């Protein structure tokens, strides 16, 4: 079955192609094809996983050769899949969560005329994401990388008859492309230094490479990861990406695609191992973004944007972990998996709320929904507990380990990274509790035409499954370090360093901060009345509400000068470059105007010219001695 893993990509891809080409006659049942394709991928993945579990941990990496891709003289690359515990983890996450979200979307998108197209895009995304994680070379990974970007673009802009949604889609794609420059340049560096782009050859060549080379590659990979995973400074697109239908936000902009950056870093572990500076940068970016995301999350009133900020922040955790080296890789992926579950669950919950509230997203118009939507409240609550890191829910097992790992190290680094992680936990508790309480508790602040109701079973069942996962997955995988051992063939065995503080102290501190955060949120948003319009706030809150002015900065630094530059260039091209050309032409034309006066039309003066010319020629020939 491991050799058949190409089916994982092929089936959703074929389904996507079919749905796009089938036309209107497939409108009535096309979505079930999409669900079927995703489920089939899950089944294939599951069988492969079971088969892999039957192997020794050393033999679990399995290479699948597909076909000769680029048979260049020097750049000689085969398309192949690398099926190992790391990619298998992603396969399971993507196909499982993906299938649930497919099912959910059947109901969620029921009234949309273009549901078939929606499922085609979702399938396309699944195929691309699986290609991304299964690829055995950076170039093939890049195909998946751009593929998910495209799917993301299509889905964010799914309702592109609203101009701002279309703009959001463009923004996502373009910012991602900035990240792609990083990946392209990283590949250029790899090809220059190692002459290859497949993981095997690159990693084999790493020991011979200099630190400077590896650092350069690592930093470029980091740029790519920042673009895709919405890390500082390329995070600005994620909030706008919430323009897409909510299942998309759940699948792509929470559970899977945005974590691709973390995957890239972990996959490139051998490179980062040789480049401590790059590693530190990864961790620093992660730490910075986790705080940044948390701060933004604290101020957002749009439920999806708050969740998006939370995603940014949580991926910050993962990046932080991935930047810690072998100690953190497994935890990064672990958190990625649990996060995939609880964040997807929460997004679906948010979708359920919107479904019941006429697509209202402003949390200030929610409140007291727990009575109207019990299932949603419970499933969301489980996700909330998980993200807070309350034991024994999933988040506790993954996040706490990251915080602990952040405190390992020398000098001042553990204090900064660890401190950030610790504070981040408190902030997370605050903003997630705020979100939870504002939505489900307190007084009802609905408008009259809203009649909140529970969503149909097609939506709630996936939410329940994800909630169960949020609750117990962490516990199951963490028992006996199962997950860490599972990933060890890929991430390498980590010498478990000692944190600068005792592990117990860190855990207690974390829990205390979480409790504090949640308590403050309860006081402000659960117990007290929430004003229906956002009150005037401090400068910091305004900054957070505006995504820390990232958009304004981008607009001021890139967009506006860019627009001016473009306009100037368009003008200059017409006036200067083309003007010079036209001026040359006109100069000739004017010369012609002048000289044409000698052409007076008199035959005799033409003849005279000829004779004079003849005389001159004779003179020259004679004088020339001929």
């Amino acid at each position, binding site marked *: 079955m491991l050799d058949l893993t190409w089916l994982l990509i092929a089936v959703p891809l074929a389904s996507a192609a079919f749905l796009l080409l089938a036309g209107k006659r497939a409108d009535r049942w096309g979505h079930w094809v999409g669900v079927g394709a995703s489920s089939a991928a899950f089944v294939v993945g599951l069988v492969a996983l079971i088969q892999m579990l039957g192997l020794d941990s050393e033999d679990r990496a399995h290479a699948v050769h597909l076909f000769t891709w680029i048979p260049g003289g020097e750049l000689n690359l085969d398309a192949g899949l690398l099926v190992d515990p790391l990619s298998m983890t992603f396969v399971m996450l993507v196909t499982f969560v993906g299938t649930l979200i497919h099912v959910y979307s059947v109901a969620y998108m029921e009234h949309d005329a273009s549901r078939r197209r929606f499922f085609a895009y979702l399938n396309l995304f699944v195929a691309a994401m699986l290609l991304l994680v299964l690829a055995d070379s950076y170039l093939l990974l890049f195909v998946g990388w751009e593929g998910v970007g495209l799917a993301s673009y299509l889905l964010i802009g799914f309702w592109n008859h609203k101009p701002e949604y279309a703009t959001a889609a463009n923004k996502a794609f373009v910012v991602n492309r900035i990240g792609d420059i990083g990946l392209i340049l990283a590949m250029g560096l790899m090809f220059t230094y190692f002459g290859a782009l497949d993981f095997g050859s690159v990693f084999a060549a790493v020991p011979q490479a200099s630190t400077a080379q590896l650092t350069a590659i690592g930093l470029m990979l980091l740029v790519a990861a920042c673009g895709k995973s919405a890390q500082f400074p390329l995070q600005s697109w994620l909030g706008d990406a919430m323009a897409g239908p909510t299942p998309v936000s759940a699948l792509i902009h929470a559970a899977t695609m945005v974590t691709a950056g973390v995957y890239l870093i972990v996959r490139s572990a051998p490179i980062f191992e040789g480049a401590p500076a790059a590693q530190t940068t990864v961790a620093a970016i992660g730490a910075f973004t986790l705080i940044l995301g948390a701060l933004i999350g604290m101020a957002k009133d749009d439920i999806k944007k708050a969740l998006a900020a939370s995603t940014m922040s949580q991926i910050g955790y993962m990046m932080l972990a991935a930047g810690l080296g072998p100690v953190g890789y497994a935890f990064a992926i672990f958190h990625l998996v649990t996060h995939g579950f609880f964040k997807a669950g929460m997004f679906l919950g948010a979708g359920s709320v919107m479904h019941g509230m006429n697509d209202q997203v402003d949390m200030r118009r929610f409140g007291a929904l727990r009575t109207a939507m019990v299932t949603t409240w419970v499933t969301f609550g489980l996700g909330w507990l998980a993200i807070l890191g309350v034991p024994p829910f999933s988040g506790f097992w993954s996040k706490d380990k990251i915080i602990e790992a952040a405190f390992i190290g020398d000098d001042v680094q553990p204090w900064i990274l660890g401190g950030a992680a610790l504070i981040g936990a408190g902030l997370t508790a605050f903003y997630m509790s705020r979100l939870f309480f504002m939505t489900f508790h307190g007084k009802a602040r609905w408008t009259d035409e809203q009649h909140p109701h529970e969503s149909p079973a097609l939506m709630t069942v996936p939410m329940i499954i994800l909630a169960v996962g949020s609750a117990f997955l962490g516990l199951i995988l963490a028992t006996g370090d199962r997950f860490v051992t599972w990933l060890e063939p890929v991430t390498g065995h980590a010498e478990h360093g000692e944190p600068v503080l005792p592990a117990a102290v860190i855990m207690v501190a974390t829990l205390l901060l979480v409790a504090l955060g949640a308590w403050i949120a309860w006081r402000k948003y659960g117990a007290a009345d929430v004003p229906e319009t956002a009150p005037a706030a401090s400068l910091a809150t305004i900054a957070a509400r505006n995504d820390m002015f990232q958009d304004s900065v981008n607009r001021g630094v890139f967009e506006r000068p860019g627009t001016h530059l473009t306009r100037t260039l368009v003008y200059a091209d017409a006036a200067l470059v083309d003007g010079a050309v036209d001026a040359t032409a006109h100069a000739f034309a004017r010369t012609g105007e002048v000289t044409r006066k000698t052409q*007076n039309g*008199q035959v*005799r*003066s033409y003849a*005279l010219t000829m*004779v*004079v010319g*003849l*005389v001159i020629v*004779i*003179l020259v020939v*004679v004088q020339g001695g001929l």
Partner: protein
Amino acid sequence: MVNTVMFWIIAALTVIPALSLLFARKAVHVAMSVVLVMVGLAAAYVTLSAPFLGMVQIVVYTGAVMMLFLFVLMLVGVDQREDLKETIKGQRWIGLLAAAGLGAFLVSIIGRVTLPTADTMPSGDPEAVAIALFDRYVLVIEVLGFVLITAAVGALVLTHTPRLRPRKTQLEVQRDRVRVGADPVNKPMPGVYARHNALDVPALDPEGKPIEHSVSRVLEIRHQTQEGAEFRAALEDPSRKEGDR
């Protein structure tokens, strides 16, 4: 060697009439002078042991080409006088200078070189010429035949004036005439009902009045017409009428 006397005669016979090209006023005079030049040249050819060519020269140039020129001159009007005053600024002096310079250069260059003179005379009799023309140069001759035919057709085309609209029928002519209010019938011939020799006397209308325009315009210009009044007076004077009878 060539007869020196002969050369000088030929030189005089060609250059002097040739100068008329520059100074003669009437084109006919020029044409006749050029005929002389051509004859001179024919003489030169004969002197240069090309007798056949000389004959051809006379036949073609004096006989055909120059006559053609004369025909054309007559066609366009012999009295096409040329105003010798120059209209293009500087044309005369620069032109003269250039032509003179050209001649001077040619003469000076040719005068400086010495070319070997072969002892053998080329045989310019018709037989030798025919052998050369229809043997070595037969292809050229063929091509020249084409050129001549083309030229002939070309001249036909050039001088042919196509009819732009269909020929008018008599009926149309008549209608047009009525429309513009001209004489509905033929103009009366001069001298009708007149007693004099007809051409210079206006015709008389049925009322006995002379019709002035029945006399040719040319005669009017030359003042060779007879006044109609005189005859009218004669007609109106019964006494003279009797007397004349």
